[in-house]
C-alpha cells in the first residue's frame, strides 16, 4: 500500500557549535570560518567527520561574499567529499530552513547523522547594498532591510497604540543578555536604556541601537536518529515539530505587521508538538528580531500574546531572562547577525536551552523552546520546537 508510511524517525540535536561572532574575521577564510563551527559541533557530539553521512549548508544571497554557490568550494572544508551536500537558500529564514531540511533527511530515514551549517561572512562585502536591489526590480529609495521594515513597525505602533519606548526596552534587554553569551558579537558593557533611546535615528522609528549588527559567523549542528541520540555524550534536544511557510512579497491584503505565513507556520509546529497554550507550555523563545520592535510583533504573530497585546508582554518584563517567557536569552539577532546563520543560531540556541547547555544565559529548567526565523519581505518563515524529552510515539 502506498500510504503505508511508517512513522517518522525522531530527530535529535546532539552537537552544537558556533564561532565567536565579530564584525570581521580577517584571520580566517570562508572555509576556515565554517570549519571552525563544524568542528565545535562535532566536538560537542564527540563524533568524527567519518561519522557524518551528509552535509546540509545554508546561507543568504551569494552576493554577500561574492562567491557563486560557495558550497562547491566548501565541500573539502566541511568533510563532504564523497557525501551528499545540499545548499539551501530561503532568504533570512535560511538558517532555520537549512536545519529543517537536514532534520528531514533523518526523519525520512535517508541518513542517520547529518551535519548542518549556516554562515555569513559579511565583511567580504557590503550587505546593505547587496540587499538594495537595482532598478528595475525595486524603486531606488530602499537602502537595506531597515528601510523596508520601518514602515511596518510604524504600522504596528499605530495599530496597537504601543508607547514609543517599547523598542528601546527590547534592544536594551537583548544587548544585556548578550553580555552573558561569550559568542555574541556585541558586548556593550556600558550600555544604558538612555543611551539606546538617544542613539541616532536610522529609519524612523528604528534607532541605531535598535538595529542588528553586521557579523561574520557560522553555526553548526549535528542531527541524528534515536540510536545516535542514545550514544550521545550530552543530553540531546529532540525535535518535536518543524515547519516552513511562504507567501508572496507584495499583494493586495498582505498584512506586513502579522503575516499569515507566520501564523500558519507556528500553528503547524504547535500541532506537531501538541502545544495548545504556547505562553504556558513553552519555556524559552529564540525569535528572529533584527529590529527591536519585531519582538512584540512576533509575540502576537506566534500566539504568545493576543493581537495588540504583544508590547504589554515586553513592557511587563515577561520576556526578560528572568521573566516567565524569556525571549532571546542569547542576545538574539540584535546582538549577533551573520545573516545566513542568524536563523540557525535561533534554532541552535533553542536546542542549547533544552539541553541545559546555554551557560550563563541558561533559562532555569527550560524543557521546551521555540526557534524562529523569517526572511524576505516578512514572507518566509521557518520554525522548530525542541524539547528535553523524546517525542511520544
Amino acid at each position: 500500500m502506498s500510504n503505508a508510511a511508517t512513522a517518522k524517525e525522531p530527530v535529535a540535536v546532539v552537537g552544537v557549535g558556533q564561532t565567536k561572532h565579530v564584525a570581521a574575521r580577517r584571520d580566517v577564510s570562508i572555509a576556515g570560518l565554517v570549519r571552525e563551527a563544524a568542528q565545535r559541533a562535532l566536538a560537542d557530539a564527540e563524533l568524527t567527520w567519518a561519522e557524518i553521512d551528509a552535509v546540509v549548508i545554508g546561507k543568504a544571497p551569494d552576493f554577500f561574499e561574492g562567491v557563486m554557490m560557495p558550497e562547491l568550494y566548501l565541500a573539502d572544508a566541511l568533510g563532504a567529499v564523497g557525501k551528499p551536500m545540499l545548499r539551501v537558500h530561503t532568504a533570512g529564514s535560511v538558517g532555520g530552513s537549512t536545519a529543517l531540511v537536514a532534520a528531514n533527511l533523518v526523519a525520512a530515514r535517508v541518513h542517520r547523522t547529518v551535519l548542518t551549517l549556516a554562515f555569513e561572512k559579511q565583511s567580504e562585502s557590503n550587505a546593505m547594498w547587496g540587499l538594495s536591489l537595482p532598478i528595475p526590480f525595486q524603486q531606488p529609495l530602499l537602502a537595506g532591510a531597515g528601510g523596508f521594515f520601518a514602515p511596518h513597525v510604524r504600522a504596528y505602533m499605530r495599530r496597537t497604540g504601543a508607547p514609543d519606548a517599547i523598542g528601546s526596552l527590547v534592544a536594551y534587554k537583548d544587548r544585556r543578555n548578550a553580555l552573558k553569551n561569550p559568542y555574541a558579537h556585541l558586548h556593550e558593557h556600558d550600555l544604558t536604556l538612555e543611551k539606546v533611546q538617544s542613539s541616532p535615528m536610522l529609519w524612523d522609528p528604528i534607532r541605531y541601537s535598535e538595529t542588528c549588527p553586521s557579523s561574520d559567523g557560522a553555526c553548526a549542528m549535528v542531527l541524528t536518529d534515536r540510536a545516535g541520540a542514545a550514544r550521545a555524550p550530552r543530553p540531546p534536544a529532540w525535535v518535536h515539530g518543524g515547519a516552513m511557510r511562504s507567501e508572496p512579497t507584495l499583494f493586495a491584503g498582505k498584512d506586513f505587521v502579522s503575516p499569515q505565513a507566520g501564523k500558519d507556520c507556528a500553528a503547524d509546529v504547535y500541532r506537531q508538538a501538541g502545544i495548545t497554550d504556547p505562553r504556558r507550555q513553552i519555556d524559552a523563545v529564540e525569535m528572529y528580531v533584527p529590529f527591536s520592535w519585531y519582538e512584540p510583533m512576533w509575540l502576537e504573530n506566534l500566539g504568545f500574546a493576543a493581537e495588540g497585546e504583544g508590547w504589554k508582554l515586553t513592557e511587563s518584563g515577561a520576556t526578560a531572562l528572568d521573566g516567565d517567557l524569556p525571549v532571546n536569552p542569547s542576545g538574539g539577532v540584535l546582538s549577533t547577525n551573520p545573516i545566513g546563520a542568524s536563523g540557525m543560531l535561533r534554532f541552535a540556541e533553542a536546542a542549547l536551552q533544552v539541553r541545559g547547555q546555554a551557560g550563563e544565559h541558561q533559562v532555569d529548567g527550560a524543557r521546551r523552546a521555540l526557534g524562529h526565523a523569517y526572511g524576505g519581505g516578512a514572507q518566509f518563515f521557518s520554525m522548530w520546537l525542541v524539547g528535553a524529552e523524546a517525542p511520544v510515539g
Partner: protein
Amino acid sequence: MSEPVRGPVREVAVVAFGQSEHVPDSAETSEVEMLMPVLHDVLAQTGLKARDIDFTCSGSSDYLAGRAFSFTMALDGVGAWPPIAESHVEMDGAWALYEAWVKILTGEADTALVYAYGKSSPGDLREVLTRQLDPYYVAPLWPDSVALAALQAQALIDTGITDARELAGIGARSRGGTDADPGRQLVGPLRTGDCPPVVDGAAAVILAAGDTARRLVDRPAWIRGIDHRIEAHSLGVRDLTDSPSTRLAAERAGAFEAPVDTAELHAPFTSQEVVLRRALRLDAAGGTVRVNPSGGALAANPVMAAGLIRLGEAAAAIHRGASDRALAHATSGPCLQQNLVAVLEGER
C-alpha cells in the same frame, strides 16, 4: 561509507514534466513569464490545482539573475496564497527534486511541485561561472567553464580514453544526427560542437506518493532510488578522467542492480558524456542503452534547469511507454564536481 543503504519507506513517482521552449536570448521575457506556462502545463497534466500541492521546492541562482533573492520573484508567480510550505535550493532543480522527495518520504506531503529556471542571456555565462571557483586561489585567475572542461577533455585524450572522432560523434548524435560538423576550435581540444548551446529556460515536475500517483497518471515514473555525491573542489586533487561521485551515487540509487534501457545524462560537454558512460557502465557488452534520446544538455543547456530536465525527460519516456527503467543524472560545479543519479521505473 559505512552507512548502509536503507530502502525508501514510501513509493514516490514523477507524475508530470514540462519545460519551456529554450531560447538563446529571452530579453523580452522575465523569469516569471518564462516559468508560468510551464507550471500551468504540469498542473494541467495531472488535473491538480495549485492549492492541491503539499510542498513546493525550486532551484535557481542569484548570480544568473544578477540580483539577491531572485527566487522571490518566481514565488510571486507561483501564487503562494494562502501561504504554502515551500523551500528553495541555490542549486540545479534536480536537487530541489531531491529535497521534495525527502519531504514526501517523511509523510508530511503527498504531492510536490518542483521547478527550476535560468536566464543566462543577460551576462556572459562563461565568465559568471568562474565566480563559483575557490575565491582565493582560482577565481582571481578567471578560468572559464569551457577552459576547465577542455582540461578534462585533454586528459581523456592523453590517456587514450577518447579521441576527437568519438567526441564529434557524440556531438552529432546529440544534435539529432543531421549536423555532423564538429565546428571551429573553441578551447583545444574542444570545438563548438562539443559545447552546449547557452540558452534561457525553465522546467517543472510534479511528484506524488503511492496511490495518489496512480490516481493522477496512467503510468507513474517511480523513483526506485536517488542519491547524490560531491567531490573535492580543487581540480588538482581529482582524476578528471573518472567520476567516482557519479559511480557512488549510482550504486546508492540501485542503478547497477538491473540494466536500464534509457539514460538521460547531464553532460554539457561531449567529453563529459564519455566520463559518465564509463562511471555508469552504460557501454557494457551487449548493452542497448539509449543515451540522451532528448539530445541532452548538448541540445539545450538552460543552467540550473538542465539537470531537472534530465529527470523529467527520463520520467516522460516512462510515462509514454518508451522506457521501463531509466537512469537520470544531473551535475553541478566545474568538471562534474557534484553528481546526482536517479533510477526511474514504470510498472510493467
